[in-house]
């Protein structure tokens, strides 16, 4: 057996995943706003942003700030015991806002569990965003009212759903598109790769939107791949782009390019949005066990909000009035979020049996009947569920 210390020259190199960064020089990363807030021009992507007015830029900024505020409030609610869990998206605001705001209402979104910023921009009711994390449901909202699927926890499974949905769009002869969100870790799952196979084979109108936030819980992206993730799309024959995921305009432009291709029958596109998970994986996680504080600092300097702030400053748009307006909005949203969370009615005991089937089922109906009888032997159904028993 080769131990780590003994090393093994080249053959052991593969397991030393933490050292070094991902190689691959294939795709350069598209960036339209520098961390310092400079707007750099780009002949290929600028045309896709022609309609982005100062007003829109301000509104993008507002979304970024509000989402960060939602994230913070939800984290606080979790700490206060109002939520069971929360997966912070701190640092990924630009990836989420830039992509979702490129969509039309009739486009359909398949998220993972972390796209709560996307849900906000899509108009999902604030309490509904928290419903799952409060443990009051497995799915928070009606997908058809916002054209956004419920969160997906099984890593990568939603990529196939998005592909199938896009097959449906194609069959319907519609010119809308689907977009699917997933992480860097997800790229290793068979499902994500099969989704690319199907999407490429049938040339469906779909955007694969990969937020490479550099971590899958404790695993750095290099465990999943030594080359850029964007290369993966290329390998399936899918046109692929690599963009600065902390740059809301770069993300928006790339997503528009992809959507345009989809609407014109050009098939799927793969976008790698290079970003960073600045918080823990979830509120249950402790990243100090596995990652360097320095890394966080490096990325703090590339913050997605700071650079838009700086850009607006340069443009003279970041007035006190504007700032106050944004803060007021964020405060209001946070208040509404909290109120929606705390005021959410608890499910009823027999909700356990609800919606398993859409038509009656003799096995389950009998179980529900028996359990109702059981509950009826207690005055208070809460008493019936203490692990240690009431008797």
């Amino acid at each position, binding site marked *: 057996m080769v131990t780590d210390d003994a090393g093994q020259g080249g053959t052991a190199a593969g397991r030393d995943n933490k050292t070094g960064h991902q190689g691959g020089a294939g795709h350069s990363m598209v960036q339209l706003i520098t961390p310092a807030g400079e707007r750099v021009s780009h002949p290929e992507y600028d045309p896709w942003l022609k309609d982005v007015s100062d007003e829109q830029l301000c509104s993008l900024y507002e979304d970024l700030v509000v989402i960060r505020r939602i994230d913070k409030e939800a984290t606080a609610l979790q700490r206060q015991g109002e939520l069971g869990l929360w997966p912070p998206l701190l640092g990924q605001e630009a990836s989420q806002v830039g992509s979702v705001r490129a969509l039309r209402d009739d486009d359909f979104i398949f998220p993972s569990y972390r796209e709560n910023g996307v849900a906000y921009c899509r108009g999902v009711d604030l309490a509904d965003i928290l419903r799952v994390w409060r443990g009051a449901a497995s*799915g928070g909202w009606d997908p058809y009212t916002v054209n956004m699927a419920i969160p997906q926890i*099984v890593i990568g499974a939603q990529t196939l759903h998005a*592909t*199938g949905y896009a097959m*449906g769009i194609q069959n319907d002869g519609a010119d809308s598109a689907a977009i699917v969100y997933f992480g860097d870790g997800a790229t290793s799952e068979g499902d994500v790769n*099969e989704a690319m196979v*199907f999407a490429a084979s049938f040339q469906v109108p779909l955007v694969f939107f990969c937020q490479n936030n550099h971590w899958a819980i404790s695993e750095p992206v290099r465990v999943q791949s030594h080359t850029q993730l964007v290369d993966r799309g290329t390998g399936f024959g899918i046109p692929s782009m690599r963009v600065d995921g902390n740059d809301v305009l770069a993300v928006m432009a790339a997503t528009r390019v992809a959507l345009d291709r989809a609407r014109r029958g050009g098939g799927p596109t793969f976008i790698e949005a290079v970003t960073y998970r600045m918080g823990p994986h979830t509120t249950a996680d402790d990243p100090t066990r596995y990652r360097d504080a320095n890394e966080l600092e490096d990325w703090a300097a590339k913050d997605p909000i700071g650079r838009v702030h700086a850009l607006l400053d340069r443009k003279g748009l970041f007035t006190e009035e504007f700032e106050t307006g944004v803060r007021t909005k964020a405060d209001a949203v946070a208040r509404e979020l909290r109120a929606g969370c705390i005021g959410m009615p608890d499910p009823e005991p027999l909700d356990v049996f609800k919606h398993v089937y859409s038509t009656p089922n003799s096995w389950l109906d009998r179980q529900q009947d028996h359990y109702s009888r059981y509950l009826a032997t207690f005055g208070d159904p809460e008493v019936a569920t203490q692990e240690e028993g009431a008797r």
Partner: protein
Amino acid sequence: MTQMTFARAINSGLRRSLDNDPKVVLMGEDIGALGGVFRVTDGLQKDFGKHRVVDTPLAESGIVGTAVGLAYRGYRPVVEIQFDGFVYPAFDQIVSQVAKMHYRSRGTVKMPITIRIPFGGGIGSPEHHSESPEAYFAHTAGLRVVTPASPQDAHTMIQQAISCDDPVVFFEPKRRYHDKGEVDESLDPNSAPPMGRASVVTDGSDVTLVAYGPLVKTARDAATAAADEGVSVEVIDLRSLAPVDFATVEASVRKTGRLVITHEAGQSNGLGAEVAASITERCFYHLEAAPVRVTGFDVPYPYSKVEMHHLPNLDRILDGVDRALGRPNSLSGLEG
């Protein structure tokens, strides 16, 4: 009424579903030009086009996962898994997605997906081509599991499965594909017996024999043979494996007092255990003897030279009937 094979009856049922509902799409490996390795989809791509009868890439999770997406969009996908042993790569999509989506979405997203799986052995095939994985799915909340045993049932039940708003795993007893029977193709599936109902296929009074899928024929033959020995066997074809129509089985056992269950799947944690346990719960005081299971063994499906040792056949079933009746049998003398 037309004489046709079991396979043809499914083909005809699929055709009717495709005809009646533009949202029905068929997906699978080799189901197009080839018509499937068993020819069950023969001619359908030619008549309905490549967007409704889709040859997919070779990836089972992909097939079921994209079906979920199509259902999300309002379609009714009918998925073919080429052989029983190849459903496992799709297990996650079936168990975590197809089965749970309606529950997870609080009833807003329907999953009217039919997953067709040719199953069972006895055809001399190599490994992975003869398995009976029904218990995995029958244990999975959110799914319905059915299996027809006659061409007529095949014809109506496939249409019922497709029009059901819940996901249905539809097991096709492949060694009966070539068996022929009378089929009334004009029978309205809405007025035919619902797929959830068990059916008493042979009346009897001494013992209840429960079978499904490929072994229904064997069970009927066993009943005929038993009659020669003066034993009256009531044969029940379960048709639905999840949920099992226990009311029908219970009524029979209340009459006979004795129960034998047979299936090809391995015994331990198979459907036979559920039937035995539930019937014991429901009519313990009517049982004259312990329910008897005559099943495949707890082994990977064996190679073809010995598969007939694994599969319950007429004699093994009769031996089980003897055990239920306390007549001399292969285990006589062992304490039971």
